[in-house]
């Protein structure tokens, strides 16, 4: 018999006037409002608590690898010229690690600038190291010849895993490693001559 019950509750029936007088309800505040308010308060409370958790619980997240201030990841292996290379042996020297590829236009544009920087400062104080990501050595050699950057130390990284080790997000990307083996700065995208001047000069000409 439940099915025959009217679709409204007993409280509403009494509310609409049991005496049968046609009467529009004066928009009463039904319990639903209070409940809605309660729900709202509950929701806001939950939001606040979570927000507080979000604000306070900062522990546990460290600066990601590759960001300034962190120790530089390992970088070793044979160079394009076939010589062994290890970044760890270059303590005391400033190292500019440039992640690049021959198929990348901006890399092509910035290589002469980097080669110039290497020429300007002696290898005893500055090493510019290129990391050729997912590229053939032939294409890289061509690129170096075309841009006059043959003097650079270039490490091939045909799989790109070394770039991932460094946390590189694309090409070109440049990491500046100071004499203590820490990352001093990082540029995502091409570097500018102004950046090189500003960042290299204080490290190299104290």
């Amino acid at each position: 018999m439940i099915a025959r019950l009217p679709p409204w509750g007993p409280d509403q029936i009494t509310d609409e006037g049991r005496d049968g007088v046609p009467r529009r309800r004066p928009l009463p505040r039904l319990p639903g409002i209070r409940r809605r308010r309660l729900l709202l308060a509950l929701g806001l409370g939950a939001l606040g608590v979570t927000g507080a958790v979000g604000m306070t619980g900062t522990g546990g997240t460290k600066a990601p690898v590759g960001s300034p201030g962190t120790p530089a990841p390992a970088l070793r292996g044979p160079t394009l010229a076939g010589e062994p290379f290890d970044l760890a042996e270059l303590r005391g020297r400033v190292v500019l690690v440039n992640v690049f590829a021959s198929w990348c236009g901006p890399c092509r544009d910035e290589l002469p600038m980097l080669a110039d920087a290497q020429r300007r400062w002696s290898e005893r104080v500055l090493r510019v190291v290129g990391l050729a990501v997912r590229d053939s050595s032939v294409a890289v050699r061509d690129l170096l010849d075309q841009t006059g950057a043959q003097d650079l130390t270039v490490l091939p990284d045909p799989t790109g895993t070394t770039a991932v080790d460094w946390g590189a997000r694309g090409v070109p990307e440049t990491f500046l490693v100071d004499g203590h083996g820490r990352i001093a700065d990082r540029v995502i995208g091409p570097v500018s001559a102004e950046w090189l001047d500003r960042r290299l000069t204080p490290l190299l000409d104290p």
Partner: protein
Amino acid sequence: MTGQVGTWALGAGLIATVAATLLWLRLALHPGTPARAARLATGAGLLCAAVACGALEWALLRHDFGVRFVAENGSRRLGTYHTVTSLWSALDGSLLLWLLILTGYASLLGRLGQRHDQRLHQWAMTLVSVVSLFFFALSHFAANPFDPVHPVPSDGPGPNPLLQEHPAMGLHPPLLYAGYIGLVVPFAYALAGLLAGEPTRSWLRAARRWTLAAWACLTAGIALGAWWSYAVLGWGGYWAWDPVENASLLPWLTATAFLHSVLGRRASARSGWPVALACASFLLVLVGTFLTRSGLVASVHAFTESTLGPMLLGFLLLTAIGTVVLVCWRGTSDPYPPEATPPLSRATALLGNRILLTTITAVVLVGTVLPPVAQALSGTGTAVGPAYFNRTAVPLAIAVLALMGLAVLLPPSGTRPAETARRSVAPAAVGLAVVAVTGLASRPGPMVLAAFGCAGFTLAATAAALARRIRAGGTLRTARLRSALGGSVAHAGIALVAVGIAGSSAYTVATERELPIGQTLAVPGATVRLAAVDRVRTGSGMTVRARLTIAPSAGSPQTLTPELTYHPAQDTTVSVPAVRTGLLRDTYATLLAVSADGRSATIRLAANPMVSLIWAGGALTALGGLLALGTAPLTSRRRRRTAWPGRPLTSRGRHRTAWPGRPLTSRRRRRTAQPGRPTAGTARPVPASASTPGAAE
């Protein structure tokens, strides 16, 4: 010159909408005065929007680069079609289209809506006018596309290359906008009901058809957008849970729930659901607009670098606060009336679906909005991607699918366990059989199996229910049958979409390889041979095409030509895939790279099964909405007749129209009180006496 006309049109539109707002407000406050002036002002708003749109279109077609929008988005190299569509290829122009549709809705509503309750209509028109006023102000002050440019450039860069690749550009944005903006009508009516102090459902009747029309457009727009991204973006997917895609899904979800809360004949009659859902739909439209146009989120579809953000956010917050205040102040009803809906009834299933749809909306909303908010508040990056939505929204959606089938099996009210059980046997058998067969034949994973099973169950249940209706149709009114048909078609469409999504996500196979000319690349179900690589210098850039022949082709050899186009103006390369659509599976080829000597190409080849089901299902769903549009607003045509006094008398409604303005609610009450009256869902012929109030009076 054209720019001047456009700017003046925007200014005049602003004035017209201010006038319309004031006039409609005056009508709402001083009832009884003629509405002619207010309607004229609303019409003037439409005229101004049309003139502004026309002026910009004219400037685009004439390559009038002295107009800022044309200088930024026009190009002499574009064909006529893409020149016309470039009106909505960037923010400022798309706002004009938005305005045109909004004022169009306003004028239509001003003309058609008066058949309903006058006061309701006047308040609704006031609210719609306020919204139009805001968008005119936005366009005029913050994003005027007609700003002059000095010096006048000789050519422009053209729109984003991705927008130049597909004919859907002409259809998808206008449809989506029509759907989006149409949701302003239920919102306006819901608030109008509160403002006018209407404790009845008359606003629901007024809003339902508008919502259906908007919903059908929105459905078609979303489906078209998915098809577009499938055909252009080249990764073989159609839905990425991208913030902007989500923004279009959110109002769709709440509008769907709203439509069903209108349907529920008893359970939701007095509940707060419809008001909440109608308001939420439009607020979510504003949220979506804010997300798309403020540059808050990075997305393929988002218009970037917008200064409108603060204005839109302000309007959004104002609207939200206003709505909440109004609902709390004047809301009349308990969201969950303690009425006795028997646990095993359609009303319960509908309520369950509403709760689930609302939960999905909450999930999608938090997943979309959280990353930018967290970034803004704490500076830490949080990313929410498909993995999250697939684990939260997708299971909920499968539950919705199952409840959809269950709802048509259950009687509208009342418990008839034996009959329900008897009806459920066949659909349950179909669902279980689908799960058993696909589960034993392949290993698609439990989620996909559940989706298949629920879709099979729902399709079978829907078909059975429709068949029952048609069998009983001889004695039923055709409108009712049409309404049932609309619902069934829409449900079948949704089930097909579910099958398509589940199937394509489980069974897609892809491979990619560098392919010398003459060699073949194969995946199960598709083999192609690289015939040639062509380089073409097109008007603005350079295009490389790979000609692939589909290897085992009976009859004439078929070719696929995926291409890679370089657009120098934007310095981007766009890869356009080639798709051969099949009934069972699509063959989908993308050109990734071409070797320098042009002797080989890197090709990605995929066989995407069941994708065409998604498009078919989307079209069916929108069609279902349109079919339902042609039927009665609430349950049957007769009732609407009584709600509209002054309708022409027809033989069918004669005894009814003799009582204009009859109390609907009381009749419904009496009906339910009538002992032994069969309910509609059981599809038995309605005895004439039961529905004739005159006899009882």
